[in-house]
């Protein structure tokens, strides 16, 4: 992989964000600017609003106040499909993987839906990246929790988006896979990509900005 080749150059800005769920304020006045190459680690206790903030950045949850800006544009005014091209979301669990399909079939579905050029090659590369090449044609039904997590991460990388939103990416990963993921995060940041991740343990990476949530509550 060519070192420090800048692929992405967009900035994420959170401006005075308040999040309310079920009538309760989870956090308020959260502001942050993440330049290209920035990695943000969301911290906070259970229910502090880490997942909510990730969904909020993805535009899947409305803000009670404040704005999310992507490259200077308010995401609530952007075209949903345009913005969706720029970010990739890792759900906190892997329930969406179809157990009756193989790893390859699962990824191919999304590769085609995302209009990735040469989907077969992209799927093979993504599987190899996360060390899943030998399991490519095995039904996901027999995967362990960690292997499913790796498959979700492989799918995320396949999308080649500038902004990664990761909800508990290290869950169920063994130390080898966690190292693979840390390498991937480092490479993504080096390419100018942005990572926002919610995790209970800080990732073993240099230059991570911590954003504590729910301190007000």
């Amino acid at each position: 992989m060519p070192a420090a080749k800048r692929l992405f150059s967009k900035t994420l800005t959170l401006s005075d964000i308040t999040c309310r769920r079920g009538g309760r304020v989870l956090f308020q006045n959260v502001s942050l600017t993440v330049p290209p190459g920035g990695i943000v680690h969301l911290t906070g206790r259970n229910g502090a609003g880490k997942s909510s903030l990730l969904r909020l950045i993805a535009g899947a949850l409305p803000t009670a106040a404040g704005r999310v800006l992507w490259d200077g544009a308010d995401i609530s005014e952007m075209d949903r499909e345009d913005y969706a091209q720029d970010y990739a979301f890792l759900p906190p669990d892997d329930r969406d993987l179809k157990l009756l399909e193989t790893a390859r079939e699962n990824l191919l579905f999304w590769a085609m839906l995302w209009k990735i050029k040469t989907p077969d090659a992209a799927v093979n590369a993504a599987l190899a990246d996360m060390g899943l090449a030998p399991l490519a044609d095995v039904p996901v039904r027999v995967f362990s929790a960690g292997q499913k997590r790796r498959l979700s991460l492989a799918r995320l990388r396949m999308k080649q988006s500038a902004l990664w939103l990761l909800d508990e990416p290290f869950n169920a990963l063994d130390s080898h896979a966690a190292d693979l993921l840390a390498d991937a995060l480092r490479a993504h940041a080096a390419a100018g990509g942005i990572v926002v991740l919610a995790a209970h343990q800080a990732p073993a990476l240099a230059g991570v900005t911590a954003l504590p949530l729910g301190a007000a509550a």
Partner: protein
Amino acid sequence: MRHVLIPHLARSLRLHLRRGPEALVTVFFFVMIAALFALSLGGGQDIVARAAPGIIWTAAALAALLALESLYHRDYDDGTFDLVLMSPVSVFAVVAAKMLCHWLLTGLLLLAALLVVAPMLFIPFAQLGVLILSLFCGTLYLSLLGGFGACLTLGSRKPGILLVLLILPLFLPMLLLGVLAVGASLAGMAAKAYVLLQFALLLPALPLAPYAASVCLTMNVRSS
């Protein structure tokens, strides 16, 4: 459109076939209802033949609703729709592809099953053409309405009964025209007008149903 249609067709066919016997439930259900009526009406040719259009249409409507849950509610429950909304792809196209998948997995199979059901209900093969054409409209209409109803009930714990209550009333005009068309053809009269009216019902639903369904899907997924 191709990039949406092909993966959806491939996935729904694959999952359908790998679920094993579940894939044939729709067709067996259709054939069983027809057989039950044929037997319980006493087997008299004139009675059964007169009731045949009604039996076929009712059985098709109920059978088509069976496959909705596995196509829509499973994708909602496991978070697939959530990821679809986070994808650079039009929701309208996704829903339209789902509706086509539903028709291929139910409507098309029901039309094929007519070859078994028609002789059971004393429908002469000469009249099969009108029956197939009119049921083609009907099953496609059911796939469109069904997709809309399914997207409307995403998130409900027991969507089955709700779907029946929602969709069947909307399906009534199509059912009436279909029964009239088949009845007319069995009585040796022209069925063309009824079949054309069926197409007239179907056409506006082709764009409207996926549109309405895509709005419901977005609302239901984003509010959860």
